[in-house]
């Protein structure tokens, strides 16, 4: 597992500054929850970690190494695409809208990364994929296409797909926001089990219950900055800043 460090991360979106100097550390094996109103920059920050978004300045270190950039003289320069892809392959990502490959069954979705990227023999990849699907409680859905699965089942397949690459870090971008309320629990349960196994996780979420129960550290973001960060119970039950208080009074 790897630690993640954000060092003075800035990002401009065509003139608009969406990240204004983020400094934050997630220790290896920790679960960090990013909370805050929409437009606060938390999803953007998460997407910078695996370079789905570029940064304007500052550095993000995963396991002590930069991702997406390399040092060029006294400046940073965007890294070679091949190196970026290689780093990404060890960082699992789970999206709000699942994004399972629609033309593949659950099993094929989970096998695809190991077979095509890691060149794992098909039989071995299939056995591992079945094991992962069983782990997320979907042993009996391996042959189903995404369109035949409920949102909660799709998201659990998506988690299994991310795990198939044996990631050192997992990123969750509002993993339960697109789900019917009664399906949220099954996805959170899988994530809790993952946290217990010691996976380093950064989770953008509105699930305060999950944050309080599972997170080691919670960061409240607003307007492109981390307003306050720390122990989840402290932040959620005894917020110090007015903005945090105002936000929590609306979501709790």
């Amino acid at each position, binding site marked *: 597992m790897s630690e993640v460090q954000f060092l003075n991360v800035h990002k401009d979106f065509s003139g608009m500054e969406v990240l204004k100097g983020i400094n934050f550390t997630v220790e290896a094996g920790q679960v960090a929850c990013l909370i805050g109103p929409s437009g606060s920059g938390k999803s953007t920050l998460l997407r910078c970690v*695996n370079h*789905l978004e570029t940064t304007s300045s500052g550095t993000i270190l995963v396991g002590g190494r930069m991702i997406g950039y390399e040092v060029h003289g006294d400046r940073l320069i965007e890294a070679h*695409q*091949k190196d970026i*892809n*290689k*780093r*990404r*392959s*060890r*960082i699992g*990502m789970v*999206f709000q*809208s699942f*994004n*399972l*490959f*629609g*033309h*593949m069954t659950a099993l094929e979705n989970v096998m*695809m*990364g190991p077979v*095509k*990227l890691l060149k794992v023999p098909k039989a071995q990849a299939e056995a591992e994929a079945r094991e992962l699907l069983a782990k997320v409680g979907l042993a009996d859905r391996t042959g189903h*296409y*995404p*369109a*035949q699965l409920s949102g909660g089942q799709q998201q659990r397949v*998506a988690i299994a*797909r*991310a795990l198939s*690459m044996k990631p050192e870090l997992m990123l969750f971008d509002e993993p339960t926001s697109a789900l019917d309320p009664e399906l949220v629990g099954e996805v959170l349960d899988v994530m809790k089990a993952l946290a217990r196994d010691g996976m380093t996780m950064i989770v953008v979420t509105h699930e305060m219950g999950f944050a309080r129960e599972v997170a080691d550290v919670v960061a409240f973001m607003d307007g492109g900055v981390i307003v306050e960060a720390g122990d989840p119970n402290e932040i959620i039950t005894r917020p110090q800043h007015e903005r945090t208080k105002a936000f929590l009074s609306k979501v709790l």
Partner: protein
Amino acid sequence: MTVSEQSVVAEKRHDFADLASRPVLRRKRPGQLIAMVVVGLFAVMGGYVIVTNPGFGWPTVAKYLFDIRILNGLLTTIELTVIAMILGFVIGLVIAVMRMSDNSLLRGVAGAYIWFFRGTPLLVQMLFWGFAAVLFPTIGIGIPGGPMLVEWNTNDVLPLFVAGILGLGLNEGAYMAEIVRAGLMGVPAGQSEASHAMGFSRMETLRHVVIPQAMKIILPPVGNETISMLKTTSLVIVIGVGDLLYNTQQIYARNLQQIPLLIVASLWYILLTTILSLIQARIEKRYSRGNVLQARKA
């Protein structure tokens, strides 16, 4: 309330419990019957004319339907269709990917290609390829303005059949590029994003994730293009390639039986388009993998 008043009320009130236990009647639709009669009349009139007018020359049609020259022409037409469509699809795929590239030069080249080949009539392009030897008597590889390294006589390396293929295929590529582009753009961006996040390169993402799903969108119009191409190949008569229509013309130029021979050609064209439509339906079914209804059926 009198007895007569009571019966009026009973009449107005329906016994829904009783009605609910009986099947629903179908309302008669007289318009359908009228349409049937009108269509039937036209069919009889049309059939009468076709059978009784000797100008159709049905015995002549029968005589030439399997004539070796017709069958040879048919074979050429099929070859032109298949090769031009393959060429068109490959060009279309490349141009579509170029058009969606980050590189503005590649985007420009792709745009110019589509602009040129869609902007001039196919008939004119076909004639150009036929007369290519006039423009470039020899073709070869060399230094511009300097000596040639290898050189061939254009008419030797560019027989009329190849000129026809190029005319049809390059033109088709421009239209196909737009079809493929629409298909690629029809795949949700989240699919590519998930693939990139897993560590797949742009090319791998296209190959494993985007194109297989775009096929579902691309195939119906490609089927239409193929059917259209089958008939468009007849334009090669202007450069003298011996396709179905050209050979038909050659026969009626001698025996002056234009109508029966054009019927022969039409029968073959319509048979082939029918077969192509059936093939199209089958292929579409196969590529609808992941489509809920289809998957449930299977």
